């Protein structure tokens, strides 16, 4: 991996991790305010699963966009 690719990978990882954390945070907020009661395990487990899926969805979208922008 050359320097440009490494740079693209670094920038992309910041973007997709931020997006995934934002979605996870949204999930957490909903669990706190939707009126139902959830156990801590359900809440944390749910957050982990939502984070994993959000990463999987956002990585293939973000990486090529950032790579194209940086590497042409």
């Amino acid at each position, binding site marked *: 991996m*050359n*320097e*440009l690719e490494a740079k693209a*990978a670094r920038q*992309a990882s910041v973007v997709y991790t931020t997006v995934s954390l934002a979605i996870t945070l949204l*999930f957490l907020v*909903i*669990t706190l305010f*939707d009126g*139902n009661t*959830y*156990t*801590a*395990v*359900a809440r944390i*487990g*749910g957050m982990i*699963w*939502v984070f*994993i*899926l*959000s990463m*999987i*969805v956002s*990585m*293939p*979208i*973000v*990486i*090529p966009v950032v*790579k*194209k*922008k*940086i*590497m*042409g």
Partner: protein
Amino acid sequence: MSETTRSGNLVQASLPVQGMTCAACVAKVEKTLKSIAGVQEVHVNLLSGKAAVAYASDQTGVPQMVKAIQDVGYEVPEEEILLTVRGMTCAACVAKVEKAVKGLPGVTSVVVNLPAEFAKVKFYPGAVDKTRIKKEINALGYEASEKVTGQEALDREKEARQKELRYQTRNMWIAWPLASLVMIGMFRDYWILPYIVPKFLGNVYLLWALTTPIAFIPGWQFFKHSWNGLKRGATDMNLLYATGIGAAYIIATINTFWPDAGFGGRGATFFESAALLTAFIVLGRFLEALTRGRTSESIRKLMSLQAKTARVIRKGQEMEIAADEVEIGDIVVVRPGESIPVDGEVTEGYSVVDEAMITGESMPVEKRLGSQVTGATLNKNGSFKFRAIRVGSETALAQIIKMVEDAQASKAPIQKLADFVAGHFIAGVHVLALIVFVFWFFIGYASFFSPASRFVLSPYSLAQVGVFGFSLLLSVTTLIISCPCALGLATPSAIMAGTGKGAENGILFKGADSVEASSKLNAVVFDKTGTLTKGEPSVTDIYVTAGFARSDVLKLAAIAEKSSEHPLGEAIVRGAKEEGLSIEDTDDFEAIPGKGVRAGYQGQTILLGNRRLMQHQNINIGNLDEKMEQLEGEGKTAMLMAIDGKAAGIIAVADTLKENAKVAVERLHQMGVQVAMITGDNRRTAEAIARQVGIKTVLAEVLPQDKAAEVKKLQEKGLKVAMVGDGINDAPALAQAHVGIAIGSGTDVAKETGDIILIKDDIRDVVGAIEIGRATMRKIKQNLVWAFVYNLTGIPLAAGILYPFTGLLVSPELASFFMAMSSLSVTMNTLLLKSYQPSFRREQGKSGRHPSPRPQPAR
């Protein structure tokens, strides 16, 4: 990589530029490139023909620079590389490889074929190189290597297939016995199992110990491949499996060791989900490895026909050498029962040769001095020697293999939809899995969950599952059932089988688009001379007056014409020879320009020619004129004959129809295809031929250069037109038609134009090509419908659409079983094409026509 980083986003590329002849050209190219925003530095070298460019990659790219160079009149030549890519399993893998390679600067096109396991990449050398392309594919977790051909390719493919099969067999041996034990252990409390299954098998720690190796030995491939793809921004179905197996295994582990963690406890360990899920996916992989490549068996069969050794005469000695060492000009000796190693021309001996493997023709062909022989065909019972004229990649067999491989490397237009869907599917399915999870977590569980919930086809209760475990189960099942494997295999596997079936019958499709286009044809235009007709005149009618015998008239006519070089005279001589008549020399001979000939033979005076000749010689032709008009009305050239001043008869000569032209046209009509004939001949002759063959639409007196315009006129009427011609003088019309069919090209395949090449000189193969095209497209449509139906029904079921009404859920292992069955069913459906035969071939089979009885005359 050819690019080198300078600083920041500045990269350097060295582009080849063709067409530069002087310093002015250099200056022009430099100026053009410098005018592009983002280009920092340009050095053009006239001698090496290269432009070294340093550019800011965030402002411009190789395509823009190439376009600018082309706009000022120079060329940037592309290079093409064929790669074998091993390890791809579904349409998403195809999309993943295509996306990654297309993302490389300088790559202009990528076509990846899943069943054939190869990629065709076009790129600008200097902007990117072969190593970089291979490295990019390897980094995704696949194995890319430059494609080899011939026996080596066959050996490598076999080796790779066996390696994959061995790997998946090992996985099966690990996954299935352990998964079966896990399943028995999980269900030991049900039915009669408590009486026969020992209690320790139900122990959760033992079940965990049995499940762990399944998830991490056979299942490891999915984690590895998905991570390799994901870190490069590409996803494939391995990711679906990895998330499915991973989630099921983690939940099972938590519930085993920390039952109070709130994931459903010991009652919701789901070991069988993780174990059977992996086992079924591995079963799918195993079946794929077993069946992949079966669709291209015809090509493999052709490759395996190649003789390994040849017996040649060098320095007067007969010696055995490897077939690929035969050189042009070598004299090759062929004995009974041997395969002919290369293409050549017979110099000595006589035999009959079975050419079915190349031409599809079941009748063996006679070979004698001067006959052409083709490599890979089988000598039957005689011995002969021949001079090698085409060797290595020039042989007919090598050309045919290349053409079929090229066709299989292309994509049919119908595949675009499947590719689009599959390419966006994985991300879409994960979004769906997220939606399913969120819905059941926040709404569904509270609204619909019942402790009596069960999996379909399972006694297992979900009573103890909490909101997270329940939502996760549905989310995972949705991921598993959504794999687009069947969608990815649907089109390319059928195209491979169809083009292979064509090759078996001497019908070569040049691309997948030709297969699709041939299935849609509703009009066929035949060139007349050489296509519908034999292209050389022959005697069709002999009419004699009272007092003359037919054989005498033909014999004397042949004697008179023996010295003539006129094509009509040659036809008469040939006709007499075919009837076994002896043709002696004339005593004297005179050609009378514009009228005919006069000859003397054993005291007799023979006159053969037109009406004017008879008038000039004061011969009374009586009622022969009427007969002559009738023959001329049939498009024939009729010649009057007089012997010793008396009218003896008429000999008519015409270009005759090929053997199967009439039945082929009849069959096309039955198939609902309009048939037309196009020719430069006069209308009367053309219509006469058309009547004989059963064609109503005749386009006569059309100059060769106007044939394309006539085809265009038919297309403007909304017809999907095929043009059938001999491939050389019909080239513009062949190119204009939706499908150009070059007929009778024998073994000189590479020279031919057209989308479909018929190796034999048999019109019925036009019908065969359309039938194979239609059969292939039927198969593709069936496969696509099945694949779409599977996904469209499977996903909602897995997402729990029926749960509120039935209380039943699809388990992850059942989802993986359905997934494996969907790809298997598509592959099996495609394999049915292997038994398909074009109608004429079926009829030949029924009439019991076999290769042995009656050889065809030498070609």
